């Protein structure tokens, strides 16, 4: 099962390697990982996407909590969370496909951020499923390069989640 886990950590050098080392050392998967400081500069927030059965996910959250520099771990339930990711995609666009690329971009509310006679570069944000749907439609037109941030996640509702 896919899980999106947010980890609030001390914003200090070496913390990311503790988290990543835990995953590699114990044979857990990381599908994606994104990290940046929060509104409190002393803290960073990691969002990572992983896979595993219930027992593995329980171990992952417990092991993360055990790290001294980890302050909080939340395994988000999809119905209570909003996930967004951003992709930058470079697509071949020549002759008739130029219009098709723009149509797809329009449908997914992607922005054209660079253009050449042979290509478009698009920027799209959204739920991971939506973004990947756009990418799949662009793929047959000649997808040259794809860069993704991986998802970030925030809880629904008024309650904020601080250190």
């Amino acid at each position, binding site marked *: 099962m896919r899980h999106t886990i947010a980890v609030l950590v001390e914003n200090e050098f*070496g913390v990311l390697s503790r988290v990543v080392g835990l995953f590699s*050392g114990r044979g857990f998967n990381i599908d994606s990982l994104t990290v940046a400081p929060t509104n409190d500069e002393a803290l960073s927030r990691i969002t990572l996407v992983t896979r595993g059965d219930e027992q593995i996910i329980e*171990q992952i959250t417990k*092991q993360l*909590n*055990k*790290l*001294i520099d980890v*302050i909080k771990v939340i395994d988000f339930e999809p119905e209570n969370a909003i996930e967004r990711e951003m992709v930058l995609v470079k697509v071949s666009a020549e002759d008739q496909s130029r219009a098709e690329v723009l149509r797809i971009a329009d449908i997914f509310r992607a922005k054209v951020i660079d253009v050449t006679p042979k290509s478009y570069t698009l920027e799209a944000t959204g739920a991971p499923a939506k973004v990947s749907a756009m990418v799949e439609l662009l793929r047959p037109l000649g997808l040259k390069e794809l860069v993704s941030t991986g998802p970030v996640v925030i809880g629904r509702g008024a309650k904020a989640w601080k*250190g």
Partner: protein
Amino acid sequence: MKLNGARILLECLKREGVDTIFGYPGGTVINLYDELFSFKEIRHILPRHEQAGVHAADGYARATGKVGVAIATSGPGATNTITGIATAYMDSIPMVIITGQVPTALIGNDAFQEADIIGITRPCTKHNFLVKDVKDLATIMKKAFYIARTGRPGPVVVDLPKDVQIAQTEFHYPESVEIRGYKPTVEGHPKQIEKAVGMIMQAKKPVIYVGGGVILANAAAELVAVAKRLGIPVTTTLMGLGAYPENDPNALGLLGMHGTYYANMAVSHCDVLIAIGARFDDRVTGKIASFAPHAKIVHVDVDPTSIKKNVRVDLPIVGDVRDVLVKMLKVADEIGPDAKACQAALAPWIAEIDEWKKKHPMTYKQSASVIKPQYVIQRLRALSDPDAIVATDVGQHQMWTAQFFGFTAPRTLLSSGGLGTMGFGLPAAMGAQAGFPERQVMVVCGDGGFQMNMQELATIVQNRLNVKIVILNNNFLGMVRQWQELFFDKRYSSTCMELPIDFIKLAEAFGATGLQATKVEEVDEVIKKGFATDGPVLMEFKVAREEKVLPMVPAGASLTEMVLAS
């Protein structure tokens, strides 16, 4: 008054109650050693290898219950500590290891004797710190000791660059520290404890399975009180030996790969298994699918990650095992029948276990012509002080010690359980002796493991550490040989040591006494003489070369599939 970093470090150690440290000087700790030269409140012991220094600090910690402290220089000094640190980490031993580091300006430049010790020790420490500013040093030291000794204990590395040792600042040692990401659970949940006691009292065939956590939490007395109150038999892991007296009728001894027949049968037939400070290691469980197949499992542990890591658990209790045991006893008194009634209710179960004990007691075949290693262990018990401390190395002799010594008190067996580190025994005994100069300390080793750190004979003699060294010499790497015999058609690939070493001359070369027994009737004589002789003594016993450790559950088999002593 301003102090330099080196002096601040020593002041911190003093305030943490450290009186003995094990360390090896070098370029990046020379400033620290210069301060140590005139700092008389701490005894410094110089091992002959940094690995042994860390094992010694580990042995000191295991025996005394205090935090062990070791020092090494940067680069090779620091990398030599890794095996020692990993050993302590696997067995949850509280330690602080201080490593020198190249000056901060040179870090990352591949400077002389530079190693990224923070990166290298990350997976084998509870936590580690690089001190970049002398102003942070005192707080970091306070945190290091706090982390090392609280919760599930473990080793903490403090990496101290040379320029930080030289830099000066006002010294102020914090009374306490607050680490927002580190809040170990101490108190067990009262509802869970109540439920557990209820479940245990309903049980017809309960077994308590004790690990090293009981010893680390200083909870042996509380364990005995609970087990006696409820009348439940107790089996222990290697790390748990000594937590429950083995001369008690309800003691089942060791369980697992080289456990007793009756402990493994009891676990395989119990209806409630109460795991206390244990982690269901593969050497204990054998094949997971058939481990304690009829049992509901109660698991008490201070570390939440230990729970449900390897086996399903029906009732988890996170907390300090001593706190939980104290509360369990209270609940038992409140809700349960009295101790007599509890014992009476379990009489049929105890009778079933007694049948197993009668059928296959712990035994070996005695010989008149050749010394059996098990016999030496039994005689060591008989002829040593009741409170003697026994360190072991790793291998057959370790298992024979665990099976036949009969430990009755916590912190009297010092053994590398999790990592299984050959070379651990001698330096660990040295550390224990430094902690208890007046107590009898012995190390039981094989001829293989002894040679991994035998340079420490020099440290022992130089520091007048009265360690008694017992070598069960079979001229084999015996445990691997045993596996080769059983599973590899007796193809003894690289397990025969071939070269006969004159251990007596070796001991004498270092200034220790060397004794040897080659016949059964010499065993007592050598042990008596060894214990009576002042100073370090090496006692070599030429033992039956192809003796096996039995019973044995082959790796991956169920606990009931034991190869028994014939």
